[in-house]
């Protein structure tokens, strides 16, 4: 009996080992990576064939070496002014860079800065982003402008995050974009704002472009 079982096992193994069996089993390859349309039948989700695989890292940076690394911040101390009067506007240049591997699109929001303590009455400070570079106004009242068109509408800076860019801007891997930040004091700012201080914080969020 034992010998009979042994030879059955051997027969099955030699059958499986045979050229024809193995060749037929290889047909499974076409099922797996698709030949009979089985996955198309089962799947109810988006199926993409052979798209690019991107590894590496993504890094949004500014100016020369601002915000190096994922999640890093950038203290742009040049966004500062003293003696800001109602209806005055100052423009500041900012270069946005894609230092990583994949292309990305980005958006930005503005909110009150943490330091110094915000002592302005209400929200008289406005921020607006433009493309291009800053053009200084040498007359009084100082009303700088930018060479490009606005990326969003002027926003009164308060404790919430105000959107500055209406359509996400795209930067290719290794690319840069020059933008212009206009910080102003509302023309109707109340008298109580004299000598008061504050700062603005801009949050830039970049997302990998699929």
């Amino acid at each position, binding site marked *: 009996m034992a010998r009979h079982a042994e030879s059955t096992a051997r027969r099955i193994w030699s059958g499986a080992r045979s050229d024809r069996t193995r*060749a037929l089993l290889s047909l499974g390859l076409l099922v797996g*990576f698709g*030949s009979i349309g089985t996955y198309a039948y089962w799947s109810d989700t988006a199926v993409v064939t052979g798209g690019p695989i991107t590894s590496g890292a993504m890094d949004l940076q500014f100016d020369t070496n*601002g915000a190096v690394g994922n999640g890093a911040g950038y203290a*742009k101390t040049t966004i*500062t002014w003293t003696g800001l*009067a109602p209806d005055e506007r100052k423009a500041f240049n900012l270069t946005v860079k894609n230092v990583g591997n994949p292309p990305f699109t980005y958006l930005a929001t503005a909110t009150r800065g943490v330091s110094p303590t915000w002592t302005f009455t209400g929200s008289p400070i406005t921020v607006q982003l433009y493309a291009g570079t800053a053009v200084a106004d040498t007359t009084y009242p100082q009303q700088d402008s930018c060479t490009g068109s606005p990326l969003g509408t002027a926003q009164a800076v308060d404790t919430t995050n105000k959107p500055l860019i209406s359509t996400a801007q795209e930067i290719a891997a290794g690319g840069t974009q020059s933008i212009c930040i206009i910080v102003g004091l509302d023309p109707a700012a109340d008298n109580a704002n004299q000598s008061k201080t504050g*700062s603005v914080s801009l949050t830039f969020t970049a997302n990998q472009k699929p």
Partner: protein
Amino acid sequence: MTSRAAVVGRLREAALWLGACLGVLCLLLGALALVFDVRPLVFRSGSMSPEIEAGALALARETPAKEINKGDIVSVVDPTGTRVTHRVVSVEQTDGGAVLQLKGDANSTPDSETYTVDKAYRVFVDVPWAGHVVNAASTPWGLLICGGFVTLLLVSAFGGRRKEDDEPGPPADRKGGRQATRVIAGAATAGLLVTTATGVAPINTMAMFSDTSLVTGGTLTALTVPPPVVSCGTLSVGTTRLNWTAVPGATGYTLHYGTGGSVTENVGPGVTDKTFTGLVTSGTFSVEAKINYGSTTWTSVASNKKRYTVLLVLVGICSDV
């Protein structure tokens, strides 16, 4: 057997084993998908590293929303139609399903949008690098190569002389063998063409990278309207004059005089002095500068104060308060 034939023979053996094993693996994956609703996912991006790198192949099983927990790696479709596979950082069960907040392990912040699902594919195993292989095999060229490989194996196994068959068979057998080869090769090619036309493949997913950077600005300080400086002007019999410094940009001045400075008078920007005359007049004098910006007027703090006295028959007096 010549050495060349031996090498060819060994290659053939290896190819047959490779084809068979890969074929069985694929049939197994197919069975898993059919019976257990398991899908293979190819990771096209690396934001789930270091646990799952770009190019990895993972297996995910469809899971009802109420069984999804924090820490699971799930695959969902975002509003733009891109499939995203990230780790759950928070899950809230509601009547309409689970509201998931996802975050790639390599990203510093969670995804900006939450996803509301009633079911999602949950990753339970992943194999590094296998995604690259599957991805390449899923391209039209990849499919052609796979198909060509399979056809080659079939022809080798069914056509011509068989390894186990040393003595040549009767002519009828060999003809039958060639016929079988042609049928199988034809079937394989037809299947391959069907595939390429329907473009079937395992599901590709993005574990998308993101980067959030905070730009903090420096201090912004508003203007302070400086107060004028008052000084005693010409003093003569019956008149006392007080002067003040002009403030640049001032659109006017507000004067206070009389007893306790109770009288208020507004004057224009070019005025920088006030003359008092009378029989006997005295009071406290101060000035504020004003700047009218159109929609708002800013006023300085009061200047220094001066006490003045006017006497008809004597010289006027002016002194600090």
